[in-house]
């Protein structure tokens, strides 16, 4: 059993390790040749490969939000165009980014932690370092960059798909005609909303990939350790994603 002192200092030690890892990654950005090839591979894995599940989740959440909003708008005093005024900003400002974030935390975060964790416990990372290669630049930088670059693309896709699905459900289930839905969305549209969503998506992309890289890179203890890192990467990514979500809302709105 680790001593009380060790257990108390562990969070500070982890935070220091995380900051040092990111500092090293940041200073490795200039070595583009080192991670160029890996960057494109990771962009495909983070972005293109995640597209089907992101599209599906966004479509369902857009549709469900529309149906539930319509269900709550029972008063004849509230115009039906309000449904569009609620669904569209919800997708742009919150759902598009958060749903994509949760999917990436589970899908990409777990994968990154498992990959790097396995490389750690099988000494592949030591082998890279022993060759004289900057393992952080080679492994961490392309994964974090891919997250930061591809998350906004997925966010925009998810938002459009979610709104589109909401629109279709509203029309075909007879909840509200497309014209009214769009009118409501236009009436309450704020030009800052998409920027807010984009800023969120950049931050979420960074949070998920950097935390997962940290968990994987410092894995200890064989197969059990890889399992632990993978779970922690998914869970901690979701937790910090929610904290970042609240922080950005307080800071920017």
């Amino acid at each position, binding site marked *: 059993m*680790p*001593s009380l002192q*060790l257990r108390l200092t562990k969070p500070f030690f982890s935070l220091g390790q995380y900051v040092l890892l990111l500092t090293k990654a940041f200073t490795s950005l200039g070595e583009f040749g080192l991670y160029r090839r890996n960057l494109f591979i990771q962009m495909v894995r983070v972005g293109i490969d995640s597209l089907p599940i992101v599209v599906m989740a966004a479509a369902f959440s857009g549709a469900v939000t529309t149906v539930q909003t319509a269900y709550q708008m029972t008063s004849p005093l509230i115009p039906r165009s309000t449904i569009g005024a609620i669904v569209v900003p919800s997708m742009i400002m919150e759902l598009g980014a958060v749903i994509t974030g949760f999917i990436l935390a589970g899908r990409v975060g777990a994968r990154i932690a498992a990959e790097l964790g*396995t490389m750690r416990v*099988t*000494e*592949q990372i*030591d*082998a890279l*370092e*022993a*060759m*004289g*290669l*900057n393992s952080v630049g080679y492994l961490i930088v392309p994964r974090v960059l891919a997250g930061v670059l591809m998350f906004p693309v997925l966010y925009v896709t998810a938002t459009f798909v979610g709104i589109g699905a909401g629109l279709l459900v509203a029309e075909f289930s007879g909840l509200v005609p497309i014209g009214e839905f769009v009118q409501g969305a236009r009436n309450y549209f704020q030009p800052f909303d998409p920027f807010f969503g984009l800023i969120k998506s950049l931050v979420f992309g960074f949070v998920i990939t950097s935390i997962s890289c940290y968990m994987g890179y410092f894995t200890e203890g064989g197969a059990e350790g890889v399992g632990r890192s993978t779970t922690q990467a998914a869970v901690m990514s979701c937790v910090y994603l929610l904290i970042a979500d609240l922080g950005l809302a307080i800071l920017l709105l």
Partner: protein
Amino acid sequence: MIQIEHIDKSFAEKTVLRDVSLEIPEGQTLAIIGRSGSGKSVLMKHIIGLLKPDRGRVLVDGIDINEISYRELRQVRRQFGVLFQGGALFDSMNTFENVAFPLRTFTNDTDAEIRKEVEHCLDVVNLSGVGPKKPSELSGGMKKRVALARAISLRPRYIIYDEPTSGLDPETSNTINDLIKNLADQLNVTSIVISHDMHSVLKIADRAAFLHAMRIHWVGTIAEMHRSDDAKLRAFVKANEYAIGESALPSTARASS
């Protein structure tokens, strides 16, 4: 030349190395022997700067590797080839790509030159023709030989072998031992072998350092080891003889003991 001077290393509350000093002269093969968990691999990781000592220095050609920048340390590391215990092959690449990886990363060689060099390295370890195979398709012995081919691809000055024969059958172990011996002779490299396999050590090493109770307990040539009456060293060698079912020391040595 590699010099290890008075290094201490602890992990959390567990001390692994205490006041360890060792010199590895140019062109020699030194075996670091000791029980499992005695800190041999930890000591090996200090030599290439994968771990930093809590106290003491590690000098490679007179340069204290813990006092230089990360960029300079990477330059120093490029003089080393390391064979890790499990091979540490990159499982996302096939055998050819594994051996070609250091060449592609650190040289400006053309594809044709890299192909020729990889084929040469695989030939040296008697594995011609396995290039397209993934590491998961290779046996334990083959993995170690591919890792060895990768370790020598940049013609290093120093080669470190971490438990090169562990987990291998006697015949494959002999093949690996012969390879290590031939490489040391042909390439005139300085070799450091981390092992608890005395059979292997006696075959390939010029000198041995016995790591016991966190310290270098005994250092000497293989001939001196045969003559040594150090009780702990003899007990370790004896236990090895029992484990492998044959005598680790030659008959002359056993007769003199």
